[in-house]
């Protein structure tokens, strides 16, 4: 049962850079803030997807990470929707948008809560956005940790592969601080049959996360 799960590819976004499978695929001047960086990183994908502009910062970050990952490691048509899962984690939940929503209700004389902000006050919305784009319908869970937990993530996800629930999984970390001052996303594509030689182990996740 315990066939080895492999890392077919990975994508890492922080400090105005996007790395995929160890290669720099996008870079913008460090002076750009997240809103400018994310817009440029989206344009670099060269695909129209108007929904991107409606997303909050956390969803934009996760969406960009998934898109750049899957652009270079395509899995289209390889699996049925319910075989592909998304298991993500972070430390700051959706604090950036929580603060935005709180601002709309602080002043009784200027009270304007908005559904388009409120809907993003849940960290798992980013999973929904990636699922919609790619029609992924498998297991999905959002965990909160003070720091990235490769031991837990690999153990739990290996269990989902062993139990037959998953054949592919996007797993990782997507964290964004208030006002998107700091952002950090690292996604791994885990598969049993990816032709990769990098095992989905805690050690390998740690190395990629830290490099």
């Amino acid at each position, binding site marked *: 049962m315990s066939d080895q799960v492999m890392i077919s590819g990975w994508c890492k976004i922080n400090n105005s850079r996007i790395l995929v499978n160890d290669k720099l695929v996008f870079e913008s001047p460090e002076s750009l803030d997240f809103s400018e960086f994310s817009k440029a990183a989206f344009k670099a994908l060269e695909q129209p997807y108007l929904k991107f502009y409606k997303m909050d910062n956390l969803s934009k970050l996760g969406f960009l990470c998934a898109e750049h990952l899957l652009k270079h490691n395509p899995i289209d048509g390889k699996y049925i929707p319910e075989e592909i899962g*998304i298991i993500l984690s972070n430390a700051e939940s959706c604090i950036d948008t929580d603060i935005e929503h*709180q601002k709309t209700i602080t002043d009784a004389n200027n009270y304007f809560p908005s559904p388009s902000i409120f*809907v993003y006050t*849940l*960290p798992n919305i980013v999973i929904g956005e990636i699922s919609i784009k790619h029609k992924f319908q498998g297991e*999905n869970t959002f*965990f909160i940790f003070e720091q990235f937990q490769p031991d837990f993530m690999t153990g739990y996800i290996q269990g989902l592969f062993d139990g037959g629930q998953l054949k592919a999984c996007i797993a990782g970390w997507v964290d964004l601080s208030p006002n998107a001052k700091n952002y950090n996303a690292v996604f791994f594509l885990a598969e049993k049959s990816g032709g990769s030689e990098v095992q989905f182990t805690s050690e390998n996740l740690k190395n990629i996360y830290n490099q």
Partner: protein
Amino acid sequence: MKVYITGDNVISSLGFNTEENMDNLFKGITGIHKIDRGYLSPEPIPAALVDSGKLEAVFSNIASPTLFTRLEQMMILSVKQAAESSGMDLQHPRSLLIVSTTKGNVELLEKDKKTNFPQERVYLWGLAKLIKDYFKLYHTPLVVSNACISGLLAIEVGARLIQSGQYDQVAVVGGDILTPFVVSGFQSFKSLSPEPCKPYDANRDGLSLGEACATIILSSQMQNIDNRAVVVAGGASSNDANHISGPSRTGDGLFIAIKNALSAASLAIDQIDFICAHGTATPYNDDMESKAVNLAGMQEVPLNSLKGYIGHTLGAAGTIESIVSVRSLLKHKLIKTLGFNTLGVAEKIKIISETKECELNNCLKVASGFGGCNAAVIFSVV
């Protein structure tokens, strides 16, 4: 390996322990009442609130209420009572606590509450750390924050961690309180009913919010149980991949979760005695569920929603409704869907409209939430 349910606690608008809650549920009493305009909302709304005075009084028996937020008080009380009810050693290296919540201490973002507590407590890991320190836990609690399926998903995660041999006992605590943050958000969606909610009813017009905290103890060992026990037989989650705030138009996402949970439990649809559904009483959610239940071929299986009693308790919903379902199984008693009168959903389903005794062995619990997420867990008597 079997995963037994060996203890529980429910703190809700219907009481401060599971027995009190079950008594009120069996009697058909609701915890939803009209709340005047004030701190929670600029206009009056029906909501199911936990009695703050009583909470403070009960909590002050174990610690000073001024040192803990309202949610922290509820979570500590609930975990403590549930662990005691099962004899679980929370500090054991083979024990784990899972915290399920959507918004945690989000009230600490309010201007006048900001300074009362360290800022890290607004983070869900900060909340988990506080509970860890209080109980002197061996492991840092795992936190699941996955919209309105959080509580049910956390039970599924806990069961898997026991099955994989990583832990012997897992306590799953689900909790969320009502804040202006949450109430204003649902108001902006226009999804609150002006009256107590009416799940699956032809005249349903929105949900009622509630607050609660509930803890369920999962164990690899059957203990503290006389002759009958309930196990987590199987579970699954899925995504609609359709819309972030609207339920699927076809119900296919929830159907996938139901199908996979049945297969994980090795049960056929005719072995399920009742479904405890999400039933928020928004027009779209209840329609979607009726479609998913029909896709699964389970339209003849009796189904209830507990939202008419305790409201939609968000991150607590999955844990509290699972506990009630487990107690239903053990008591052989089906609980009626309070607020329901005339069926008014897209496809025919069989709503439980009378609280009555009957032979029960297997229950399917489902939940769906923003982000298109769905979860299904099956509880079975062994």
